[in-house]
């Protein structure tokens, strides 16, 4: 008999395995999030929001009250909820398309106002659910369905530094960090600190999580790992970028 995989207590067990593709990073990020929620013992206070794209597959993943919407509008839904019921702990989970492209104005607005919510952006360098198109986070030269010859920075820009941008515009009290599914303990720690920041009422929190999409990357396990650890790491530095009460930290822990 195989041992049952250890699932966070805040996960629903009745509908597992989850709906993500094999090798997808979402399951790992959401496991870290589940662990963070468990360790902080906040399951009865959390409302979890997920977005359109692959993140929506988590609409029934947790034993948490959940709302699913789209286009990065999970951020204003959670903002509206938090403003209406400040005792709730509101988490907005989305991909880099929702967070950094179509819904980026909401991320900017929420960060500027230091909304006491936690946003988690899964960065897998492309739009996955729709079939692998170029995103703001696509690496130079990376091939996607809408840049089949590789992203040309001269024509379509450089990978979007979302966490750094939010860190630059958010007032003191905000917490910003970038973790990765290649360093799960660190990622869980960042998520815990982001949630703690909301619990303590300091302000906004954003955790970007570097994620993997072997389906659209068309990579095997070894190349997937290498893409996260080498290719993505070259543009997206892991670490805490903004911590309440401290000057902007230098990224890369």
């Amino acid at each position, binding site marked *: 008999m195989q041992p049952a995989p250890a699932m966070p207590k805040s996960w629903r067990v009745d509908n597992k395995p989850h709906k993500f593709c094999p090798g997808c990073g979402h399951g790992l990020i959401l496991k870290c999030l589940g662990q963070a929620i468990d360790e902080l013992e906040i399951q009865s206070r959390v409302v979890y929001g997920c977005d359109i794209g692959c993140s929506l597959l988590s609409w029934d993943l947790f034993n948490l009250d959940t*709302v699913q*919407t789209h286009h990065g*509008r999970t951020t204003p839904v959670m903002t*509206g*909820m938090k*403003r*209406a019921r400040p005792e709730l702990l509101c988490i907005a989970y989305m991909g880099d398309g929702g967070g950094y492209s179509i819904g980026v104005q909401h991320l900017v607005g929420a960060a500027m106002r230091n909304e006491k919510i936690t946003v988690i952006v899964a960065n897998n360098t492309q739009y996955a659910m729709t079939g692998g198109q170029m995103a703001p986070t696509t690496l130079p030269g990376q091939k996607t369905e809408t840049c089949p010859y590789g992203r040309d920075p001269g024509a379509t820009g450089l990978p979007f530094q979302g966490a750094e941008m939010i860190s630059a515009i958010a007032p003191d009290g905000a917490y910003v960090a970038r973790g990765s599914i290649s360093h799960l303990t660190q990622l869980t720690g960042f998520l815990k600190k982001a949630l703690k920041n909301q619990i303590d009422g300091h302000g906004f929190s954003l955790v970007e999580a570097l994620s993997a999409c072997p389906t659209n990357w068309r990579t095997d396990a070894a190349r997937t790992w290498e893409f996260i650890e080498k290719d993505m790491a070259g543009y997206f530095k892991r670490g805490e970028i903004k911590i309440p009460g401290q000057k902007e930290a230098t990224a890369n822990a």
Partner: protein
Amino acid sequence: MSEELVIEEKRVFMTGNEVVAWAALAAGADIMYGYPITPQNEIMHYWSRLAPRYGKDFLQTEDELSAGFATAGGVMAGRKAFTATAGSGSVLMQEPLAMAEMMRLPTVTVVQQRGGPSTATVIYSQQEVTLTTMGGNGEGMRVVYSTAGHQDLYDYTIKAFNLAWKYRFPTFVLGDGYQAKMREPLTIYDPEKRGITLLEPDPYVGREGEPGRDRPPAQYRNTYNLEEELYEKLMSDIRDFEKISTEIAEYESMHTEEAELVIVAHGIVFRAVREAVGNLREQGLRVGGFRPVTLRPLPAPQIRDLVDGLKKILVVESAYGQIARLLKEAAYGAACEIHTLFKPGVGIAAGEIEDRVKEILK
């Protein structure tokens, strides 16, 4: 410390936007999310001045998408939340309000129509009828009250909150720039003192207890995997909507029996119709007036009755046939002639209507 809200019944002289802010207070609204666009701005201005006094909240968001989605979040958290918009803001508002339709959220949205399409004028129109009744990528599962003045704005804003929380369909109060900006007298009152019970909001999320242990998690989605799964959900909403349609549809009619011609209009244009009908009848012309108050659902049986016994109707609106399209659908197959007076984006006075009626009856 916040004061207790006491609204003594009294005559006041206010702009329509101020009326809406007071009506929202009277209805027990907790929080408004808004974004500036003329001509609804003063709803936010008055609300943001009044709200803190009574322990209520306001948030100016980064755009109308955010205002609409935050309103959705607010109602899901179990608070009476509302927003107000107009014109191109109304266009953006369709995305969150489509979500409100899908999730059966009791959002209240006040729309003060301005000229369209696009930026157009900040002044007035009746061009947001199609958008407000049928906007979004859905089936228009929404309730829309079209007001004809300040007493209506007060009464129907209060009613909108109650109806939204009772039936859980997104509800709209459709005004216009004239109503928003002009002052006129009306009576404000505490609805409970008039025997109107204000419904208590009920949270969708964040109830007592730990999900999975003390209760099942409350999980709301907009996404469906299968055609049949979506079809089942939609048909259930459509059946609910159709069931309440007769009950909630409202209209006003004047002298429609034995009329040779009935002038049909909604909103503020009906005030010119009232005047025109009076003047024409004094001149011996057999003319009546009919006003749908709910544009969604339309008072379809009454429209049916009207057109079945009638030779001519004249549809008058400050748009190019938006209410006329809805009427024609309700009147389909009737033998009566449908005449029109369409002035998109422009106000309509009684004299023009009288001239048009005389031309038709010549």
